[in-house]
């Protein structure tokens, strides 16, 4: 034991403190240790349960369209992209295609990540009313 440690021990003895290395845990310490162990068991148990779950469905996207909003001469089409799979999709690109006056118009947006069982929101902006637009996820990457 170093001189410093001995000195510290002596000082704490003088103050009537028990050596924390030897003294039994107080009730407060037992309670916080128990709560901590329960919390850790919950976290580790959840991670192990996810690991053992065999349903590793790849990313699977669904696009829901919201109500069109008109701003000036432009039409804003809100989209909600849901990933019904278990795996995360990265760089998820949503593209909307619209035939108007014989011309094809295209709008797209890219989301950095759409984790499994999660939703992200964005908007596609068109020059014509996108009521008949075809909107779908056109690409994604495995992170």
């Amino acid at each position, binding site marked *: 034991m170093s001189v410093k440690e001995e000195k510290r021990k002596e000082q*704490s003895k003088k*103050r009537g*403190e028990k*050596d*924390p*290395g*030897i003294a039994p*845990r*107080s*009730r*407060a*310490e037992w*309670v*916080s*240790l128990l*709560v*901590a*162990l329960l*919390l*850790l068991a919950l*976290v*580790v148990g*959840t*991670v*192990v349960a*996810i*690991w053992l779950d065999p349903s590793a469905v790849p990313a699977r996207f669904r696009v829901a369209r919201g109500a069109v909003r008109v701003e000036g001469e432009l039409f804003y089409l809100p989209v909600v992209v849901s990933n019904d799979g*278990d*795996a*995360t999709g*990265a760089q998820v690109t949503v593209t909307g295609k619209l035939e108007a006056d014989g011309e094809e118009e295209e709008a797209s947006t890219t989301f*950095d*990540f759409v*984790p*499994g*069982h*999660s*939703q992200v929101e964005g908007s596609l902006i068109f020059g014509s009313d996108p009521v008949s637009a075809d909107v779908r996820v056109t690409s994604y990457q495995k*992170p």
Partner: protein
Amino acid sequence: MSKSEAVSDWHRELNDLMRAVAGAFLFGAPFLYTMEVWWKGNFTSPPRMLFALAAAYVSLVALNLNGGFRTRQPRAWNRILGDSAEGLAVALASAAFSLVLIGIIRFNEGLEVIMGRIVMEAVPFSIGVGIASNFLKKQDEEGGGGSDGLPEERAQDWSSDAWRGTLADAGSTVLGATIICSSIAPTDEIPMIAAGLSSPWLLVMIGASLLLSYIIVFEADLGSQSRRMTQTGIFQSPISETLASYLLSLLVAFLTMWLFQLVRVDDPLSQWVNYTIVLGLPATIGGAAGRVAL
């Protein structure tokens, strides 16, 4: 055991746990505002999560050998192992709380993603818990703190000049907040986090910032706390100090964002307010650390 001893045991345990929380946030705040850490959590596999938890636990055991978060350093092995488990639990709870607070965890997301983000963020938080009592603890010892207290003359000398004390505290707050803000303000995390938060949630964030600042300086018994409790000056009532330093931290947050052109004079007021409150959280943690450290 007498009643007063039992009360003091509970009080000491609460203080120790608050010190662990303070350490976690002091070290973890810059990692909390790093989107790459959240993103890694998006695709962390369960075995990797278990490895991260094990690595955090081993680090805590190593740090508990000569530090940890308790005032009374554990020396017996069963204490060290138990304290490390408690430290890891505190880190996980703090990481989960802070990720919910900044809107990175939402309850409509998949469990794997939520666990991944919490576990990855808990790794730096664990290091913070492990070095909590090393943070500036020496100042109290060197200053003759602890049970011995300061030499009376020195204490009076210091407290007789309230203005000097106030300016010193304000300066330390500004310095601590500036250090943290300069590393976070130029990044894209601020607009990203602010965009996802509603106005009522911003109020929750203000409350959390004040609470954390209070915990770090007045509850965690870090650094020069015993000296601080005897000081006079505008900053020296716990509530007024917490409020004044929060306002100063907000000012520093705003100025650093302006410096890095994250906010411009033409931007709407709501953007100023939202961004400032979002950066105000790590700023006030830095400010509190500055007051404890300097």
